[in-house]
């Protein structure tokens, strides 16, 4: 029997982070961005940059704009410029899967894509899978099965699972395992994750 986690406490921690350190960091970023806009203004077509350019990203149903240099990855743009922190930065080199987001429904490493390329595409993070404060069924099952320890890899696993189930609602247990080929959990919660896959594919209790 899995001990239920106090949701108010979990959300409380997020609200706390949002309210303090992150807000301060965002203010600093906004300060430096004003200078980058001026620098990027001379950039002539057909190429953009290397200075900052206006970039609009559709993230979790919202249009977010910022001045971002072309070299900035989608992951860095989300976390450092747009204050969207559901995608985690772990390896930052396309190996661990913690930064997995959905791009037009397909799972992609946000660290291995430039923000400028992601314009015009629908970006969904693990946060965007939720309806308000209500967990997506995949997230709910991850929680019920206690399929995370430190939790840093979890948003990546959840989005990778969401991608395969959106493509094939009848995905098998093996399909689920393959869908998270590119995700690593260093705490080793695979046993519980297999229980999640069993439940998601109709094999679990």
């Amino acid at each position, binding site marked *: 029997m899995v001990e239920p986690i106090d949701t108010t406490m979990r959300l409380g921690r997020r609200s706390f982070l949002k309210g303090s350190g992150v807000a301060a960091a965002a203010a600093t970023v906004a300060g430096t961005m004003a200078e980058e806009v001026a620098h990027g203004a001379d*950039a002539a077509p*057909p*190429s*953009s*940059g*290397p*200075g900052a350019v206006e970039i609009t990203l559709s993230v979790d149903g919202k249009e977010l704009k910022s001045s971002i*240099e*072309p*070299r900035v*990855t989608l992951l860095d743009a989300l976390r450092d410029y747009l204050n969207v922190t559901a995608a985690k930065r772990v390896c*930052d*080199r*396309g*190996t661990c*899967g913690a930064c*997995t987001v959905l*791009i037009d429904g*397909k*799972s*992609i*490493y946000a*660290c*291995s*894509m*430039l923000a*400028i*390329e992601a314009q015009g595409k629908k970006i969904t993070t693990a946060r965007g899978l939720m309806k308000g404060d209500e967990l997506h069924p995949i997230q709910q099952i991850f929680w019920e099965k206690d399929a995370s320890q430190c939790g840093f890899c979890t948003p990546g696993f959840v989005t*990778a699972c969401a*991608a*395969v189930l959106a493509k094939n609602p009848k995905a098998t247990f*093996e399909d689920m395992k*393959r*869908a*998270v*080929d*590119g*995700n690593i959990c260093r705490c080793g919660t695979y046993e519980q994750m297999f229980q999640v896959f069993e439940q998601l594919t109709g094999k679990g209790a």
Partner: protein
Amino acid sequence: MKEIAYAAPRTVADAVAALKQANGNGKAFAGGTDILVQLREGTRNADVLVDLKKIPEMTEIRQLPSGDWQIGAATPCHRIESTVPFAEGYPGIIDGVHIIGGWQIKGRASLGGNLCTSSPAADSIPALIAHHAVVKIVGPDGSREVPVSEFCTGPGKNVLKPAELVASFVIPAMLPNSSGCYLRFIPRSEMDIAVVGCGTTLTVEKDTIKQARIALGAVAPKPVLAEEAAAWLIGKPATIESFEKAGEIARKAATPISDMRGPAEYRTHLVGVLVKRSLMTSLRRLRGERVDVLHDKLV
């Protein structure tokens, strides 16, 4: 990562012009799964990234009237493996495409990127060589065609001249009674690099081998053909004994190094094993059997 400009041309000609304008400091950019990591780590350098994904012909996969298939060099792997008529006709190429990385990598990584990175261990190259694939290269002086077997010249090196790019692959129509296979040996089944890779194609009529082609990865400075072994197979009965003997001969084409993935002697041994299994899988497939190389016990 140092400062980089970004260009997103809509035509191959504009992409070549952008690379030429960058004067050696531009890099063609498809899936970015290699190059973004390399730029960040400083192992490669660029002032301009020329994104090829907005060029329609570079992201299309289609069958030509001749029966050949044309695959845009920047087409992501997931699109190649989900193009059913191609995937069913070329299971050997799909074997390689399928294990190029996890889902997230396959949504971005392309055949063109895999080829231009020119790793001796690249997973898509041996099967492309075994299928006689040819690349169309476009540059400031026009276009040219180069067989994939002649594209790589060493680790990370290839025949591309400044401002040239690989626009597309042409994969010849399969002959009747033919199929292919790519196998790699690695300690785990995903997100790893081949200790040895082996791509084969086989044509068999009435149990006699009519054509065979064997390409090896990760056993030389570039992917190589095992020509002597393939030539030996012609006219032989399509049996496991023939494939085993071909594997023995193919070992002579391997000149591997020893590294953290395995000593040279072990790699040479694996060549024999993989050639035999890959040819046997090609045979089973051309006889109509569906073989999932990741889950089948093989022979």
